[in-house]
């Protein structure tokens, strides 16, 4: 097992983690500010990917495709918030789960209706394809490196937005006491729509970025959604910092476990059974991680509220 392989896998884990962060950030913000559990967040990821694939197909420009993914997911998020979600803030979690489950059915089947059942393809642009040589002579796909960079930049931007801007102050104030900031003259319903659209845009961007290395298809958002849930449960619901730490932990654990666990079992099992045992265990690893975190800290690493 070479050092190069390990570094390569760490980078893959980082890339996965950063994409998970884009998903988890929206979920955790929406929960933190509005107290809403949104199962339909994965649908917004899918909307972003389909918008990007459609625009890239029509114009051939990857940058335009990314902009389209942001815009389409934000618009879908804002519309859904205005029509459905805002009726759910005062409801219990059961109603929220059901209503957003209903939204998934509508989004998934609606997309199948519009685009058909076959996956679409979104190509990595030429200037981002091919490998790049990192210090130490490691060959790594440029596109994946770009995903890491874009993700980290957005994470930094989000932290700046929350910590340093007026909107960020309002968002944090909304988490603490929504009546108070409404009394202070902040238009709380406009703020909610904005937060929801922001989370949706991040999910849509993640969908488009990942869509270029996987296929763009109906239902693509759901596995990612559930991983994002695991991320925010580990990090603590409502905490952006927790989402970042949780996302990187989950990304690295999943990627490294998938590669190294089968090899680890090869040390004392026959190769065939080592592969199957290792693969089964690797697929469960992040959930075991989650259970372990919950045993020690039931509210997650950075969580403070239920």
């Amino acid at each position: 097992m070479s050092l190069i392989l390990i570094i390569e896998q760490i980078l893959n884990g980082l890339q996965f983690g950063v994409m998970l962060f884009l998903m988890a950030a929206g979920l955790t913000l929406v929960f933190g500010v509005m107290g809403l559990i949104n199962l339909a967040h994965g649908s917004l990821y899918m909307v972003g990917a389909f918008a990007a694939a459609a625009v890239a197909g029509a114009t051939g420009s990857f940058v335009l495709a990314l902009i389209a993914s942001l815009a389409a997911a934000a618009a879908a998020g804002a519309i859904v918030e205005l029509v459905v979600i805002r009726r759910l803030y005062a409801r219990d979690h059961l109603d929220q789960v059901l209503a957003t489950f209903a939204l998934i059915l509508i989004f998934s089947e609606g997309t199948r209706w519009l685009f058909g059942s076959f996956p679409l393809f979104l190509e990595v642009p030429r200037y981002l394809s091919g490998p790049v040589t990192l210090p130490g002579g490691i060959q790594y796909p440029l596109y994946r490196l770009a995903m890491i960079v874009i993700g980290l930049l957005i994470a930094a931007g989000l932290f700046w937005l929350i910590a340093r801007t007026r909107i960020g102050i309002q968002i944090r104030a909304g988490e603490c006491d929504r009546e108070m900031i409404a009394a202070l003259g902040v238009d709380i319903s406009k703020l909610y729509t904005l937060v929801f659209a922001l989370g949706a845009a991040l999910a849509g961007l993640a969908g488009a970025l990942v869509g270029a290395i996987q296929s763009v298809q109906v239902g693509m958002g759901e596995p990612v959604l559930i991983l994002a849930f695991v991320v925010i449960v580990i990090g603590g619901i409502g905490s952006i910092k927790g989402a970042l730490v949780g996302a990187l932990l989950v990304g690295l654990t999943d990627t490294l476990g998938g590669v190294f666990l089968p090899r680890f079992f090869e040390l004392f099992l026959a190769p065939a059974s080592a592969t199957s045992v290792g693969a089964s265990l690797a697929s469960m690893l992040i959930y075991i991680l989650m259970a372990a975190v919950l045993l020690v800290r039931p509210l997650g690493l950075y969580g403070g509220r239920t």
Partner: protein
Amino acid sequence: MGRERMFNAAMVLALVLVPLWAWMTAEPFIITLATKVAILALAGVGLNIALGLGGLISLGHAAFFGIGGYAMGILASHAQTATPLMEWPFLIEGTNQMPVIWLVAVVASALAALIIGALSLRTSGVYFIMITLAFGQMLFYFAISWSAYGGEDGLSIWVRNEFPGVNTLDPIQFLAICYVILGAVLVFAARLARSPFGLALSAARQTSERVETVGLTPFRLRLTAFVISGAITGLAGALFADLNRFISPTMLSWHTSGEIMVFVILGGVGRLYGPVVGAALYILLEHLLGGVSDYWQVFLGVLLLLIVLFARGGLIGAITGREVAHD
């Protein structure tokens, strides 16, 4: 007699009349639909004990449904190839006897519910929803990678399992089995809700602190409810697998969890016949709308959304005009 009592009486009558009607028409398709409704209703009755009575919003009940299914699949596949399940430390053979399969399904899903519940119930609210969902998904991925029992493709069983004295291959007789079980479990659920345990559980849902002050442990009440709930859903899974003579990871997917929850909600949360009405309505919609459009789930989604937003008591609530509190 209140409207809900009257409605329940009507439901009992309908539960008796539907199989009679199915038997009179002798239409295998209708009989199969009725069987499917009975089995899915059973899964819903299981979830309703956790959800309606205990207020535990579990989005991972597919785990128990799937464990029940896999219990049937594993035992029956070993019986059909005549290979032992394991030889060490002691010999375990497969079986095609339904009572044994049910017992294994109930015990296995109860055990899983005990472990998942003990971990998940340390938290509450939205954490609980996400964690049950995540554990369900963990088993889903495990089943996909478990190539010994079909992995992603699932596993077919050639002949339906046997029940002493009954010809299970005859659709109407298999329907009868499912109906008797559903009836027995409904009686059990009704008695459970009125038992001291059920009352304490309901109280723990409404005000946990008060239950604690009288010396009961809400955690223990909830865990017991979760285990009973998981065991019933597991039994339904074993029957569902026998209905289709097929198991696959789909039984464990979180869409299945969502659907079981939809049965409960369509009918009405916390009502005895809620899951029965809900499952019947769901299958009816699937059958009717599925004939109109391949994309029938869009309509289902819109309908569900309207029910959640505007008719919170579900169908039974709309008919009897009284809302049962859920929180």
